[in-house]
């Protein structure tokens, strides 16, 4: 993030704080079970927060006189939940991010003649610059205990720089926890016959060439900036500029994979990129620990577990591999836990926090420990996205993004009672009674699949 951006966002932040100055924002939460995630659980402890930060955590703290006291008896305090990777549409207003307006008419679409035209590559764009979030969606995630989310615009082979935002209401730039978080890659390029790349192998080759070009560009530019006299000036390339800037900030690449062959191929490909990278999706990870375990590659496991597509022709009998995949994908987190593969939960494609928690519950049923489940929902995503010093656990000095529940978050009867975002308290209304979900899926009429 450039310094001006920091200044602007801190000014905005300060003015926001000033506007709310009638709120002391000093809370003392006591008699509560504290799950700091970074350390052992405190069965009955207290947490003091002030001005949006956590001031102290302990078993026997004294409440300062100016603090508002919250009695947390029979309740549990967690760090705010963190969706490690979701599509920007999970929060964005219907039309998604607007295109940047530069005041000049856009160049007409050009015919792609090869990799140097940088097809579907948006590394120069910063998603945070154009975010328009939907207040209802923000509220829904907040009410589910998610205090911050990593939003990705999947807009090409090389996406815009992603953002970590808080789910506070009245979205503004001050909600940005990390305006530039990562660069997601994709493998879907052109959709018609003449658009490069229009095959998976073409996309892979394009990425390989672009990162070779990047390394060359960085060297060339470096030499030119030191002493331009007598050197041919490097050609301006906004995609390479964007990638170079991301690399200089230490942003990771995020690469979507599902199957084991895709994981193997991607590790091979990405190791030549000169970036840190994370794998996203990874639902066949349960059989890929031989590839991931030793390398300690960070993963953002998509918890929208595979199910039968409701639009499937009932006469299309799924093959054994598909059935095994549906059965075993939810065991990926537990397999990763045992193998020491770092993993965070990605809600990619999930739009309801209930579904998110039910998916985690299924992973726990498949053997994931509860400790690891809460880690993957809080501290691990913070670590993988370079935010471990500001969010992810209940520790002194971290942002006061907290959740108070009356039980384990993945249990369906558990209620989220209260959420703190930047030290602001949000009481969660009781959800209206909803009819019980039917236990049998309407799309899987009994007997059909066996035919």
């Amino acid at each position, binding site marked *: 993030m450039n310094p001006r951006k920091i200044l602007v966002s801190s000014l905005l932040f300060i003015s926001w704080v000033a506007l709310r100055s009638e709120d002391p924002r000093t809370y003392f939460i006591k008699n509560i079970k504290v799950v700091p995630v970074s350390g052992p659980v405190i069965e009955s402890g207290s947490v003091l927060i002030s001005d949006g930060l956590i001031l102290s955590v302990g078993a026997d703290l004294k409440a300062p006189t100016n603090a508002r006291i919250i009695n947390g008896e029979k309740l549990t305090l967690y760090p705010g939940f963190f969706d490690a990777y979701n*599509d920007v*549409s999970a929060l964005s207003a219907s039309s998604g991010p607007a295109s940047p307006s530069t005041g000049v008419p856009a160049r007409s679409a050009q015919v*792609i*003649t*090869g*990799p140097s035209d940088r097809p579907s590559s948006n590394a120069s764009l910063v998603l945070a610059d154009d975010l328009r979030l939907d207040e209802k969606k923000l509220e829904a995630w907040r009410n589910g205990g998610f205090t911050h989310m990593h939003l990705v615009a*999947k807009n090409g082979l090389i996406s815009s720089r992603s953002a970590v935002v808080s789910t506070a209401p009245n979205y503004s730039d001050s909600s940005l926890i990390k305006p530039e978080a990562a660069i997601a890659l994709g*493998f*879907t390029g052109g959709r*018609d*016959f003449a*658009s*490069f*790349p229009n*095959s*998976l*192998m*073409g996309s*892979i*080759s*394009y990425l390989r*060439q672009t990162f*070779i070009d990047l390394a*060359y560009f960085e060297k060339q530019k470096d030499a030119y900036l030191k002493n331009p006299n007598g050197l041919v000036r490097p050609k301006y390339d906004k995609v390479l500029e964007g990638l170079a800037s991301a690399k200089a900030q230490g942003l990771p690449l995020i690469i*979507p994979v*599902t*199957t*084991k*062959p*895709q994981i*193997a191929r991607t590790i091979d490909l990405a190791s030549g990129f000169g970036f840190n990278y994370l794998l996203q*999706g990874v639902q066949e990870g349960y*059989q890929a620990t031989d590839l991931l375990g030793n390398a300690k590659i960070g993963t953002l496991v*998509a918890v*929208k577990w595979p*199910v039968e*597509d409701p*639009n*499937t022709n009932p006469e299309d009998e799924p*093959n*054994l*591999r*598909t*059935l*095994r*995949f549906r*059965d075993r994908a939810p065991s990926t987190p537990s397999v990763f836990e045992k193998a020491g593969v770092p993993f965070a939960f990605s809600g990619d*494609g*999930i*739009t309801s926090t*209930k*579904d998110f928690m039910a*998916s985690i*519950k*299924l992973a726990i049923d498949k053997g994931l420990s509860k400790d690891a489940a809460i880690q993957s929902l809080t501290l691990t995503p913070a670590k993988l996205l370079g935010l471990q010093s500001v969010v992810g656990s209940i520790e002194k000095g971290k942002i006061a993004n907290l959740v108070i529940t009356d039980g384990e978050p993945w249990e369906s009867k558990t209620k989220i009672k209260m959420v703190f975002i930047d030290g602001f308290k949000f009481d969660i209304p009781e959800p209206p009674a909803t009819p019980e979900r039917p*236990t*049998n*899926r309407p799309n899987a009429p009994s007997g059909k*699949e*066996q035919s």
Partner: protein
Amino acid sequence: MKRIVYFSLIVATSLISQEILIKNATVYTVSKAGTIQKGSVLIRDGKIAAVGKDLKASSNAQIIDGEGLFLTPGIIDAHSHLAVEGGVNESSLSVSSIARIQDVINPDDKDIYRNVAGGLTIANVLHGSANAIGGQTQVIKLRYGLPAKDLIFKGAPTGIKFALGENPKRSNVTLPPGQPRRYPATRMGVMDVIRQAFTDAKEYQTDWDNFRKGKTKIAPVRNLTLEPLVEILEGKRLVHAHSYREDEIVALLRTAEEFGFKIATLQHILEGYKVAPEIQKHGAGASSFSDWWSYKIEAYDAIPHNASLMNQAGVLVSINSDSNDEARHLNVEAAKSMKYGHMSYDDALALVTLNPAKQLGIDKMVGSIEVGKDADLVLYNHDPLSVYAVPQKVMIDGKIYFDIAADAQKNLSVEKEKAELVAKLKTRTDANRPSTPGPRPNPRIGSDFFETFDQEWKEDLFCHVFNHFDNE
């Protein structure tokens, strides 16, 4: 992991015993040794250790009784589109040499197993034919159950696809509205694209030479499109050129000679019989179909005697599948040359074994049953060139990858496991199913990015326009 449980029992036995002896079989060696009645083949550590009669193996050797059976070298397909994920065509550019089949080999593709069951052990997996210069090809061994990197046939020379005629020029294709027409639109344009590409490649080669010799201080940036073309110029990469008509065949041979490289194989080459002496003189191999023709305008002049006539003219000929499943009966395709053109039995069998091995530059390692070569073998129940021939056992590197008896057992266990999983998945707490559909519904298997590769438009375009032959 459990995926390979199928094989583990079979594979384990062959791993433990270092030696395998196949005895009493009719052995078609496809070598000077000819056919050995009641012959034996001794396999040690995945290689053929001895071929003859009454061979002796060590006491712990695994014995396969070939009584009444027929043993041939593993079938080799010089033109396959097997096990490719995400499309075989990077069709966008006239020169798509940047694309590499090796990047997208899908070892989970069950077509691999189906082809092994048909006796195929090696496939030259080619890029599609939409471009004058297509993507880089990959020779694989059909070691089903192993990761992609272990399917790659190490030691096989690298290759590349070229294509001439209707597919790269596309002038007879009706494009969807709004889509620009890509250069070239004529056969002479195709040749121009090739000539221009190699002119660029020579320049690139010179840039690197100058840098390596210290004439320039700054290294050129690596260009992944031109690198493989430089390898062709240096004789390090084999060119497999899709071609039909006599005029384009000769034009390509001349263009290649102009730049000082050789065409390794001419693929399809349905009019090859007209210019067989020219092909022979250039030294190119020919890989054709047995008796498929008239599926498009440039395939009207084909005759089923093509392979035989080219063979008589001294051209190295093979018969290929151009598909992901036709190779299951490549032995029968080869046999057709005996009916049309009176090819000898040995020559016909070589069309799908030794000849493609020579064309791919792997004949020192595979292609015949000779001492020192890889134990890639097929054991048939009938004469291998008969329509009744069904592989009983197929071996790659001395490991059994298909066994017809084990396969029947395996099918039972697959059906059982499927039924169990269907029942189990029904009882799974359905809570994970999103109440509202996400931005992209998760496809059956595969991530959004990999699997939503919209194959449909391609298949539409290709199947309808090219009658399935756009893969070529």
